[in-house]
């Protein structure tokens, strides 16, 4: 039997080992990002990137657009019921636009992107690893980091900000649909209030910076989880789950930090 003291020491040792593992994984992930994302693409690389843009970008368009529409509509509905009590329903356009551009478009689009494209990237790369395709590529003398990983990383970096713009635009239009067409807010005040209060640099610009940060983090997590997983069916399923969980947490946590820096006067 172990004494209580030994058990305590054991627990500390395990904790320390866990900490070391986490730091090591972070280091590997950092090296991985540096080795794969930096470099000038070849002509073939551009083609591979375009194919991935289709896969992670175009195919995610439907879910992002539909969600954007509904979120815009709900925002207008909820906003109207509150604003109308103060007789301030003319400010509906301003409310819808600011919530979408500053917060909802970057965050929700990133969460959807992690679920739709991130998990698929992890599973695809994981399966390539499990079936030794990555190893055989290495043995042919082609670096999988450049050939498989880099196009996927860059496609994610570019696709998510574009999807976010789409989300925002459709969301504002959804708000217009409900607020103006259905609830009867004056159309002129919906648009002109929005125009007067939304600043291109601090609202649209900061929203886009957020979106770019989320794009880098989500794609990085997804691709690294796929590349680093244990090549078994269980390993693939775990890594896919981890991609969605880690990237969702990272997006929400980073959103708070970025908001605090951008709008919180830090």
């Amino acid at each position, binding site marked *: 039997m172990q004494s209580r003291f030994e058990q305590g020491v054991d627990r500390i040792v395990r904790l320390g080992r866990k900490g070391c593992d986490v730091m090591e994984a972070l280091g590997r992930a950092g090296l991985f990002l540096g080795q794969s994302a930096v470099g000038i693409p070849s002509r073939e690389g551009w083609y591979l990137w375009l194919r991935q843009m289709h896969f992670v970008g175009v195919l995610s368009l439907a879910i992002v657009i539909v969600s954007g529409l509904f979120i815009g509509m709900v925002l207008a509905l909820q906003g109207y019921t509150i604003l109308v009590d103060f007789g301030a329903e003319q400010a509906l356009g301003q409310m819808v636009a600011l919530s979408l551009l500053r917060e909802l478009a970057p965050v929700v689009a990133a969460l959807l992107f992690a679920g739709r494209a991130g998990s698929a990237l992890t599973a695809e790369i994981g399966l*390539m690893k499990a079936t030794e395709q990555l190893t055989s590529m*290495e043995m042919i003398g082609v670096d999988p980091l450049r050939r498989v990983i880099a196009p996927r990383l860059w496609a994610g970096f570019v696709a998510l900000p574009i999807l976010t713009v789409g989300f925002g635009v459709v969301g504002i239009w959804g708000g217009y649909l409900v607020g103006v067409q259905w609830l009867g807010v004056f159309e002129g005040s919906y648009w002109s209030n929005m125009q007067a209060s939304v600043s291109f640099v601090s609202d649209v610009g900061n929203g886009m910076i957020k979106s770019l940060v989320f794009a880098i983090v989500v794609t990085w997590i997804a691709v690294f989880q796929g590349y680093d997983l244990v090549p078994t069916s269980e390993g693939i399923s775990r890594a896919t789950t981890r991609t969605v969980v880690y990237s969702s947490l990272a997006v929400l946590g980073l959103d708070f930090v970025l908001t605090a820096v951008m709008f919180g006067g830090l």
Partner: protein
Amino acid sequence: MTDVPFIEIEDVHFSRGSHEIFRGINMIIPQGKVTAIMGPSGTGKTTLLKLIGGQLTPDQGRILVDGQNVHRLSRKALFTLRKRMGMLFQSGALFSDLNVFENVAFPLRVHTNLPDAMIRDLVLLKLEAVGLRGARHLSPAELSGGMARRVALARAIALDPELILYDEPFVGQDPISMGVLVQLIKRLNEALALTSVVVSHDIKETLSIADYLYLLADGQVVAEGTPHTLNANQDPRVSQFVHGEPDGPVPFHYPAETLYSDILGQATATRAG
């Protein structure tokens, strides 16, 4: 041996976790010959190929390929060296997003600037050699295991490498394609002066094509020699393997406590409990 060595393996130790796979192995693989590495399952034959290809790093010792220390090379130099190697994987490891033709064309497309028409001719010639020219439009998912491995062989020889590492080339082949493969490996070796390393436990086929053999067991080279000397070897470990006898010094069973105590001990304990 008086041949020029192409691969030199010097005192290589390797372990996975606490499991020791190699305890100081030494090998010389001569240029232009077929060298076979044999041994029971789980002796690390595939691991050895991965060490030669630079995918794994030994804990101790070094591996020279054509005079270059594989594990001291920069990433770029290692990839340049790998262009001169072909490796046939046990699973085939074909790229699932490309069809058979494109899989074989892949090394040519990335490493050469040949015009499309010439790539097409080369690919068809390689596929003809493995008897799968007619299967060029199929996707890897539509191939059987044996066919996938033949396509993988065509891909491995696409760039006419100087060295080919074969990982279990004969597994899952029907007798006809087995005979063709054996001939193909031999012919490739003679016609192109390739250095071939064949990892296998198909004794008959391997003995028929190998110029020199190494027998691995317990993380060490237990015997080496030409097929003739190995056949005549009196060491019980060697003759047990070469003649496929169930009883001998090499255990068939994975280490465990005795069957008696495993089954009856359990029963006694249950009854008592």
